[in-house]
């Protein structure tokens, strides 16, 4: 198939359609709105459902209903909207309803700004709402992956019966790159648990209430087993020149590309730098970091936040090497800035 130039948000939306999604419920918010706009144009032509909900709260609950019918369904938003959706996400997690959630993230807290950020990392990777649960979180770093991860996200969601989130900095949603569209996948998988009318079977019930402490504990154990299985099978990271690296940068999303550029520059200057780029933020790819730690002088977590992923990096390193932090808020740092600050860190100039 031929290459086409697409905006990140539109590539993601097209990827979702190629992944079998025919229903979208959402509420406009910058910098994610192009996803809703794309779906509003395309889905009616495909016999699908596009609905602009009255609120983020309503949108996520419409997703709950649509997912319960067995349909592939998604919603997209940005930080403040994702906060509003948390109640629904907790319910989706416990009801084990598959769906795709998208956070084209911007800076917070509060209304924050509309510039790119990674400061929703905690919210995305720690569950986000009430109760013991996780959702899967994928972090693309280019427009092609925005498209591919949407397709993959639906497959993962259906396979594990879990909400899957794509989290991408606002820049990634707004920028254009050439992409190659993949083949469409078959529309629906068999979902015997769906509430779509009980013709020729016993009624299905989708609920999240477990008043008996024993049943509640059992439910939590079932979820926990699923999360362990996902941790065993789905951790994903990209590595770059870590085999002989004295210093390893950990960075995800678009920022990982900027970091890569800085690392190549520093390699030319003779510094042995490498990159680990988590692709799944949950489950966090801790093993690749852990395995590299004994040979590494220092890890540096670079984030567009005040330091969130660094906690997972530290857990993975488990005291075997120092872990330092470099962060910005409100913009993506340039390769030059990262190069300069990394050089200073390596030389121990930053106190």
């Amino acid at each position, binding site marked *: 198939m031929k290459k086409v130039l697409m905006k990140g948000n539109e590539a993601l939306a097209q990827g979702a359609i190629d992944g079998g999604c025919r*229903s979208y*419920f959402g509420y406009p918010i910058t910098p994610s709105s192009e996803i809703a706009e794309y779906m509003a144009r395309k889905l009616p032509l495909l016999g699908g*459902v596009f*609905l602009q*909900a*009255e*609120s983020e*709260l*309503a*949108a996520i*609950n*419409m*997703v*709950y*209903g*649509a*997912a*319960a*019918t067995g*349909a592939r*369904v998604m919603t997209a938003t940005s930080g403040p909207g994702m906060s509003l959706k948390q*109640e*629904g996400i907790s*319910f989706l997690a416990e009801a084990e309803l598959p769906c795709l959630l998208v956070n084209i993230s911007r800076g917070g807290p509060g209304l924050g700004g509309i510039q790119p950020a990674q400061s929703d990392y905690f919210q995305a990777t720690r569950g986000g709402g009430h109760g013991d649960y996780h959702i899967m979180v994928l972090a693309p770093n280019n427009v092609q992956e925005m498209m591919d991860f949407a397709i993959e996200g639906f497959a993962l969601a259906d396979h594990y019966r879990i909400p899957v989130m794509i989290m991408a900095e606002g820049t990634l949603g707004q920028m254009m790159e050439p992409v190659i569209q993949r083949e469409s996948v078959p529309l629906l998988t068999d979902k015997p648990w769906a*509430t*779509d*009318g*009980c*013709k*020729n079977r016993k*009624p*299905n*019930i*989708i*609920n*999240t*209430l477990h008043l008996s402490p024993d049943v509640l504990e059992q439910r939590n154990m079932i979820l926990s087993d699923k999360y362990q299985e996902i941790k065993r099978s789905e951790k994903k990271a990209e590595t770059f020149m870590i085999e002989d690296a004295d210093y390893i940068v950990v960075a995800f999303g678009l920022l990982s590309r900027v970091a890569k550029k800085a690392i190549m520059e520093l390699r030319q200057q003779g510094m042995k730098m490498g990159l680990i780029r988590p692709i799944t933020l949950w489950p966090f790819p801790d093993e690749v970091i852990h395995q590299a730690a004994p040979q590494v002088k220092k890890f540096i977590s670079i984030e567009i936040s005040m330091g969130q992923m660094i906690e997972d990096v530290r857990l993975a390193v488990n005291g075997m090497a120092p872990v330092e932090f470099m962060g910005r808020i409100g913009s993506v740092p340039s390769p030059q800035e990262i190069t300069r600050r990394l050089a200073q860190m390596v030389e121990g100039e930053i106190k």
Partner: protein
Amino acid sequence: MKVVAKKPESLTEAKYHYCPGCTHGIIHRLIAEVMDELQIREETIGICPVGCAVLAYNYFNCDMLEAAHGRAPAVATGIKRLLPQNTVFTYQGDGDLASIGLGEIMHASIRGELITVFFVNNAIYGMTGGQMAPTTLLGQVTTTSPYGRKKEDSGYPVKMAEILALNQGSAYISRVSLHNPANVIKAKKAIKKALETQKNREGFSMVEILSTCPTNWGMNPLEALKWLEQEMIPYYPLGDFVSKKEA
């Protein structure tokens, strides 16, 4: 022998958990009887609220979901949009529908969503133990209005049927009561009409059902029925507020 009454197929064998004298049981049965009569059990998907009826998924013998507090109309919307040929209903109390879920019910009605809402108005929060609802009458004593509801503090009791009747998306809006057998029969007619309104794709439909909560009202069942008739009905008049087919 002729069978004159039997348990509707649309109800399960499970025993209700409701308090003595509570009218939820009557409403469940009326809805189930209508589902049987319209032969829609196998195509119906119901959504429970958070409130005393949160466990209604144990009682209706059709596909059921339980929604977050107040969100049932949004969940119903998601289902109905994906399954336009199926029948979808929500079953909600006054805290769920008229307080925390006001946005969801309002916009479901504005959109003319092809769902049916059974709104149980008993002027109090039941499950949490008798707190004030938006529908609590002025002067009514609850655990969070211990000196009686004051309009200066909490405004006036909300009339959901009248409010939703203003939306053009509403095709059938009715208020009924369960204080005596004649009115129970009328309530069943309204429930049937609401589900037929959905079937005919006329628009949004809701039946507000004035109900009792003897436990939290601090009355015996008979006193509660009397209180409903004498105190609630004068403020919440019965009848159809929108009926598109008649218009």
